[in-house]
């Protein structure tokens, strides 16, 4: 070793110079001790990281090979009875950015603006509006978002969202309602059926490879819950028909509002429910809440004469009168206490049949006063007045039916022709199922029902048949509603022309209504029409609401292919001006 060392130095070896190998005595133990200490430290640290502070490293480690993926689940569809989509969710994208991290060249910005169909100035304005967070585009088509993301602009992000579309637009708006933020139902069926329709996204952990592809499932963190489809009883064809005819009538008579309901007699299903005014649920930014109300279910009105058949039915069922019992209605007025009841057109002695046909208030009041108030109350209550119809719609109202004990005679008399009681249109339509069937009231529902639905018997079958016969007379010449007749079908129904109650006074504004069913020989459909404040002259239910009934009923029966039950030339209209007028 010395030799080598000398050779390296390139010098001649010096002899006799022996350097004594003398190390400090403590050097070796010291180095050993230090090294040992370091090892102890290292071991301690590793134990610490393994058992105490393992969280951080584990997260960092798994972040490099695993990912949590969201498993999307979209909201269920709402479909009509034949499967036509009425509300549908489809994936869309939203583009967003943190404005301080957003960095685009002018060319990129211009290109982005072009894709988003806006101007660079507007985009900049959006970014400047809020310094923390800004949406550059909301709910755009996935393809547009892909093109925007392909520009690789720094700080631009996209996120998945679902957007709800309503193909029916304003025609089905009131039934379906709409969803708000985060796809949650806000109105109508969307709100009422939120738990059924809503899907909840799941999440799972996977192992990824260097290309960011999932290569192995590790665990399902949350199972996705797909939203379920919901089938409504609505028939889109009838719904449109109802909407079109109602709209035409509301415009023609310059009315404030209107409602129309079509019921399936066999099942109580609501086949169509139209309301005016309406709105477009796909573009509802500046729509007044007022237009969004489903008036047929959430508003009440005094039904007027459309209630007379129930009074007559109660008296017939109790055996107090028969269809041919004669009631004296002359001189067309009747005074009870301080109040007087009028007939719009004074009649003489009328049979019970004619009381309905001519819609005599005095006649109905006299019949009502011959009944105990409990009997009448029971009939109205059994008909479903005063209790919410439970169709499955949120916020439906019960209407007002005061307990029989509190009725004064004058109130009992006015209630006989539908004043002092309030109902909604669906209640009214449903109550007529007792005349369209053999005296059974069917539950009304907005949901598709299969097969026959049993009702609750309310009337004796012969009473139902007798009233049905009277209601048919009302639509024939000599009745209040010859304009309700339909070519090829026998129809039956009752008009209503009710003064509106404003404050505590009856005004000279009216609610014109018609409720009826057809074919009279074997009723299939009930149509109830309500026109609120017609203000272009005509206001009688027989002039305003009955023609709507006729148009809707005729077209609906033909659409459904219901066999005709009358000869084709059955419609006989009386000469103009000779129709029987009625008030209430």
């Amino acid at each position, binding site marked *: 070793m010395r030799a080598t060392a000398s050779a390296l130095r390139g010098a001649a070896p010096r002899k006799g110079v022996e350097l004594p190998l003398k190390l400090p005595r403590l050097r070796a133990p010291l180095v050993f001790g230090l090294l040992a200490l370091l090892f102890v430290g290292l071991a301690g640290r590793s134990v610490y990281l393994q058992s105490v502070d393992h969280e951080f490293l584990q997260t960092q480690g798994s972040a490099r090979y695993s990912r949590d993926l969201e498993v999307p689940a*979209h909201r269920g569809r709402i479909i009509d009875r034949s499967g036509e989509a009425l509300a549908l969710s489809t994936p869309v994208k939203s583009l967003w950015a943190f404005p301080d991290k957003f960095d685009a060249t002018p060319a990129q910005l211009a290109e982005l603006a072009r894709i988003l169909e806006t101007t660079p100035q507007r985009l900049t304005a959006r970014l400047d509006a809020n310094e923390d967070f800004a949406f550059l585009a909301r709910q755009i088509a996935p393809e547009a978002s892909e093109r925007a993301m392909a520009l690789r602009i720094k700080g631009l992000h996209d996120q998945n969202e679902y957007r709800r579309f309503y193909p029916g637009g304003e025609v089905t708006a009131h039934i379906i309602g709409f969803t708000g933020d985060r796809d949650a139902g806000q109105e109508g069926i969307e709100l009422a059926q939120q738990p059924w329709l809503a899907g909840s996204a799941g999440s799972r952990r996977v192992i990824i*490879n260097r290309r960011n592809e999932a290569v192995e*499932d590790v665990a399902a963190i949350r199972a996705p819950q797909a939203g379920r489809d919901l089938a409504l009883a609505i028939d889109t064809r009838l719904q*449109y028909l109802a909407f079109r005819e109602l709209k035409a009538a509301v415009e023609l008579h310059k009315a404030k509002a209107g409602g129309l309901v079509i019921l399936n007699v066999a099942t109580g299903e609501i086949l169509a429910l139209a309301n005016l005014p309406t709105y477009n649920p796909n573009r509802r930014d500046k729509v007044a809440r007022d237009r969004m109300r489903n008036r047929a279910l959430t508003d009440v009105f005094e039904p007027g004469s459309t209630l007379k058949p129930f009074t007559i039915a109660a008296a017939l069922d109790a055996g107090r009168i028969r269809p041919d019992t004669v009631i004296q209605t002359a001189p067309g007025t009747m005074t009870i206490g301080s109040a007087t009841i009028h007939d719009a057109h004074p009649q003489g002695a009328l049979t019970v049949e004619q009381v309905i046909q001519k819609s005599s208030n005095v006649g109905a009041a006299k019949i009502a006063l011959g009944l105990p108030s409990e009997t009448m109350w029971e009939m109205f209550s059994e008909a479903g007045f005063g209790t919410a119809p439970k169709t499955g719609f949120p916020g439906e109202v019960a209407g007002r039916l005061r307990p029989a004990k509190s009725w004064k005679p004058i109130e009992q008399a006015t209630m006989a022709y539908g004043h002092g009681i309030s109902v909604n249109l669906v209640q009214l339509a449903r109550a007529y199922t007792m005349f369209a069937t053999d005296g059974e009231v069917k539950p009304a529902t907005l949901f598709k029902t299969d097969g026959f639905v049993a009702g609750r018997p309310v009337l004796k079958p012969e009473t139902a048949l007798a009233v049905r016969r009277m209601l048919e007379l009302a639509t024939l010449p000599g009745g209040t509603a010859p304009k309700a007749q339909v070519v090829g079908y026998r129809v039956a129904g009752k008009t209503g022309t009710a003064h509106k109650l404003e404050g505590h006074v009856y005004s000279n504004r009216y609610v014109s209504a018609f409720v009826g069913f057809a074919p009279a020989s074997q009723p299939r459909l009930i149509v109830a029409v309500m026109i609120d404040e017609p203000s272009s002259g005509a206001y009688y239910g027989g002039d305003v609401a009955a023609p709507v009934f006729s148009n809707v009923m005729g077209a609906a029966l033909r659409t459904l292919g219901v066999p005709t039950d009358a000869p084709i030339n059955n419609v006989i209209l009386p000469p103009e001006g000779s129709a029987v007028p009625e008030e209430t």
Partner: protein
Amino acid sequence: MTRVNLVLLCALIACALSLVTSRHQARRVFVELERAQAEARGYETEYGQLQLEQSTWGMPARVEKIAREQLRMQLPSAARTEIVALPGTKEGAR
């Protein structure tokens, strides 16, 4: 003894390699499955969009508007409607 060990070693190596291969195989197939599922989701989305389109185009309001305005069609009045009775029913045609 040595020979047995060698044989076992070979078997072990073979097993290990087959494990690696099958593992790789599994991942490859899984990636394929993922892709197919993504594709299925894509189709589902497209189906939804098509349904929406069909529903929107087929709405009676739109159909009627086109029939009226572009094709100049109109509903026949009752006077111009003829109801034909099927043989064997009691109603006669007008």
